[in-house]
Structure formats: structure tokens, C-alpha cells
């Protein structure tokens, strides 16, 4: 049926339309917003730094001696061995926060409103990503600093050291975008952090904490070839001043593949996802 209604028209001055914001303004606004989130949520920030620290202390002082003994080394050798794995595991902890904040934005109607506004709404996600990078690199820096305090020494050149940090940063980006996509598809923030929990076990089944050769045969296949292993092996080599061999580009390729897949998924899901 057809219904038409009319009311007396108020002759108000026509307001000037707003200009809308560009990509860069959006990126700036949302990076600032996400950083405020990170640094105001004191508990999450503390967790992001404390968890990797505790992980490092546990592995160094509780398991370190006995694991290293099997390889003919001591606690100090194990610290040098486990350091990249601790940094990458920490990245997983820290990045799981991204799933929660993205999910919050998607399910509370916040994103819906932003999508009716004149700016590229993908900058919301990029802001969360940038903030996750900052937060996790900070945690990595603390981990490395404490490692030095515990007696870690290296002959790595500046180039090698930067290469290791670069690889770790690349993995942080990978795990952040994966968590961002999880946050997008999860029905709630709780579910998002639940999915993320599974991913946090990934580093243990790699060459990160114990040599793959010491694992049972059925596990070796996965542990030896899963994406974290080349990233960890290459970072470890670089951190300790050795040549990373072919591991580094295998690691980089894995990372690039994950990022491409996550961006592709995000591009497919994000425009359609409207909170109901």
C-alpha cells in the first residue's frame, strides 16, 4: 500500500555538509584511540608485559637446566635458545587482545555508526593493528632487556639484531591480523578470545622451546614444518650472531602468505558484517 505524508516545512538554514575525513586522518584518529585503549587498560597492559616475563623466568629457571642438559648445555645456553620463542609467544598473548577489541567494535554497534560516516572505516581495523604492534614491540623490548639482565650476551651485529627484531615484528603483525579477523567473525568478545586461546599453543609445538628432534615422530612433521619454526630458527640464529640460512626467507614467505590471506578474508567479511 502507498502512504504519503506531508508536514509543514520548516525553513531552516541549510547547514553546510561536512567534509568527511580522508584515509590519513582516519588512521591517525584510530591509532590514537587504540593506543589510548591499550595504555588506559592498565590490567591488560600489565598482562601483556608480565605474562612473557613470567614465561621466560619459568622456562629459564624451572625447565631450562634440565632441557639444556639433554643437549649438553646449561641454563644460559637455554636462555639464548628460548628467547625468540618467548618473544613470539608473548606476541600471541598481546595480539589476542586485538581480537577482543575488534569484536567489541563489531558487535556493540560502534562500527555500524562509523560506517554511516564519511571516512574509510577500514582505518578502525588499521588503528587496532598499529596499536597492537606498539604494545607487543614494547613487551618484546622488555623481554629482551630482562634476558640481558639474566646474563644473555650476543655477538650479533646491529644488522643481525635488527633482522631478528624485524622478523619478530613481522610475526607480531601476522598474529595481530589473524586475531583481527577472528575478532571480526566471532559472535562476541568472549568467543573471540576463546578462539585465540587455541592459537596460543602453537609456539609450543615448534622448535621454539625444545629441539624438534627430541619430539616423538608423529609430532615432528608438524613441529618441524609449521610456520613458526622457520621464523623462530631464523630469529634465534640472528639474535645469536649466526647466519639464518634459508630459514629466514621461508619464514618471511609464511608471514606474507598469512597476511595476504588475512587481508583477503577481512576484505571479504568486513564490508558485509553489520551488527544486528
Amino acid at each position, binding site marked *: 500500500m502507498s502512504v*504519503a*505524508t506531508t508536514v509543514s516545512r520548516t525553513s*531552516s538554514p541549510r547547514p553546510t555538509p*561536512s567534509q568527511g575525513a580522508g584515509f590519513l586522518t*582516519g588512521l591517525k584518529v584510530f591509532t590514537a584511540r587504540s593506543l589510548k585503549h591499550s595504555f588506559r587498560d592498565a590490567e591488560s597492559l600489565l598482562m601483556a608485559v608480565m605474562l612473557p616475563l613470567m614465561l621466560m623466568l619459568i622456562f629459564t629457571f624451572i625447565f631450562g637446566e634440565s632441557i639444556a642438559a639433554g643437549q649438553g648445555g646449561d641454563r644460559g645456553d637455554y636462555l639464548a635458545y628460548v628467547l625468540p620463542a618467548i618473544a613470539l609467544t608473548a606476541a600471541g598473548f598481546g595480539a589476542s587482545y586485538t581480537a577482543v577489541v575488534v569484536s567489541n567494535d563489531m558487535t556493540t554497534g560502534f562500527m555500524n*555508526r562509523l560506517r*554511516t560516516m564519511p571516512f574509510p572505516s577500514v582505518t578502525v581495523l588499521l588503528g587496532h593493528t598499529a596499536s597492537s604492534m606498539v604494545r607487543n614491540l614494547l613487551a618484546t623490548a622488555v623481554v629482551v632487556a630482562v634476558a640481558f639482565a639474566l646474563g644473555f650476551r650476543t655477538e650479533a651485529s646491529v644488522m643481525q639484531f635488527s633482522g631478528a627484531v624485524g622478523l619478530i615484528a613481522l610475526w607480531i603483525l601476522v598474529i595481530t591480523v589473524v586475531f583481527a579477523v577472528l575478532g571480526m567473525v566471532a559472535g562476541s568478545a568472549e568467543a573471540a578470545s576463546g578462539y585465540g586461546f587455541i592459537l596460543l599453543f602453537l609456539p609450543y609445538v615448534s622448535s621454539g622451546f625444545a629441539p624438534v628432534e627430541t619430539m616423538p615422530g608423529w609430532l615432528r612433521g608438524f613441529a618441524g614444518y609449521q610456520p613458526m619454526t622457520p621464523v623462530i630458527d631464523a630469529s634465534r640464529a640472528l639474535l645469536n650472531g649466526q647466519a639464518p640460512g634459508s630459514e629466514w626467507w621461508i619464514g618471511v614467505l609464511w608471514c606474507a602468505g598469512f597476511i595476504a590471506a588475512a587481508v583477503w578474508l577481512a576484505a571479504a567479511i568486513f564490508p558485509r558484517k553489520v551488527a*544486528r
Partner: protein
Amino acid sequence: MPYTDEWLIEIAGLSKSYGQRHVLQDLNLALAPGIHALLGPNGAGKTTLVNILSTLIRYDAGRARVLGLDPQRDRAQLQKLISLTGQYAAVDGALTGAENMLMMGRLFGLSRREARRRADELLERFELSAAAGRRVATYSGGMRRKLDIAASLIAGPRLIFLDEPTTGLDTRSRQALWDEINALAATGTSIFLTTQYLEEADVLAEQIMVLHGGSIIAAGTAPELKQRVGGSTIQLHDEAGHLLQEVPTRGSAADVARDLTALARTRPEATVTVRRPTLDEVFLQLTGAPAGQNQKDETPA
């Protein structure tokens, strides 16, 4: 595409389905600038219509123009002229009230300085100045709602969509928000609001559309809609307030006096009230079920 001052919203044959579920069916509307309320129970399709008009989702068929612009084709242009305040306060709890306002201002393209000036002005107007430096997570539901609406005004939109603006608020906050919405309308901003509260539509809107099962089944001013269920009634109650008798009346002083004279003979001690029909009754008449209780005969929500 130029503005047209002709119609605020113009819809012809608009339809939207999710799979087999027809949420909106062949909707037709032409609304002039002003305050309009879309009234309907849960699942009637209110939010879907608002989401289409505010560029959030696409429609399947028909034609839609908002301020003369197609929400699909002219999305970017339309977004500069409208703002949406959804069902849940879309404000950021980790930021302060002022930071939320600034953020929205910047995203509408205001300079930092202009955004700050407008933010101060609006926070003042919505009596949020004292709380401006506090994190929104500490706000009450009513304050969040107010901030939400203030934020949507920061760039001076020509039309704002309010999707169930008072759902979940207590009576006092609801009343306060109604005052704000009325004040807002007085400044010349057009408002398209959805509500499941008949009283809200009655208090706020110049024009009410009743949406039921994806179609608009009636439209008009509140008095016009009430007219549809006939005139007033005289009600007689006993001392305990129980309804004794209800008699239709044409409502004029002479009519009521005559009707009462007759009633006074049989029930001299009864208390008298003259009741005008409520929108609830209109709703009942139009849909065959009271508001909020007619989901069962609709497509599932």
C-alpha cells in the same frame, strides 16, 4: 547530485529480504522535513529500514532517496549530511566524553580546533560538561545516550536517525531525552526515529508511520491515527477503581452532559472519566494484536 528540499525521504516499492525472509515489502513513503516516528513491534523491520536509509545495508528492489540522494549510489555524499544513532549507544567507554566528541568531529572532517569548539558547545547543551573529562564507562545509561546523540550532532547533520533512542532507559532519563530531542527538532534538524513505545511516538513525532510485518499499515499524525478507532468513551468506575461501564460518546460538552444524565440515573455514585483513545488501541485495531505481542504472526525475527 544537488540537494532537493522537496522531500526528506522518498521511498517507492522498497523491498529487502534475507533469504526467504521478507523484512521489508514494497514500501512507499514520502516525508517532508520534520520529525517522523516509525512505530512497530520488535521484528517489524524498523532497524532494517533505518540501516538502508543511513547507507549501512543495501536494498534489493525499489527506489530510495534521502535528501534527494540514493543511499546506495550516492553513499559518500549522503554520509556527509546524515548521522545514525543506533540501538546501542555507540560511544567508546575507554575514552572520555570529550574525546569521544572530538573523535567523531575529526571523522566528519572538522579541523581539530573546530571539533573542539563544537564538542564544548554540545557537551554544554546536553549538560555533560561536568562529566566531559570522565571516561564514558563510568556514565549512566542516560548519559551515554545523551553523549551518543550529542556526538551525532557534531557536524551539523540535516537529518539524524535515532533507532530506538530510549530503549533500556528508566522513566526519568527517557523524559529528559525526549526534551532534548524536541529541542533538537526546534533547531531545524530533521529526525527519523524508530520506537516500539506508542507514547514516545505520540510525544515526539509530527508524523507517525506504523510498520508491521515489513509493510507500512498506517500513517498520519497521532490525532489522525486515534481518529481511526473512533471517538472518546465515558468510563464509570466504582470506589475501588474497577471499571463498571464504558459508553461511547461524541465528546462535545453537550454530548457528554446528555450521556451523563442518562448514566447518573443507574449509577449515581460512580466516578466519571472521559477517555480519548490511545495509540495502543490504534495499534490493536490496525494489527489485531496489542503492540509488542504480535511477533507471532510475522516472519521470524
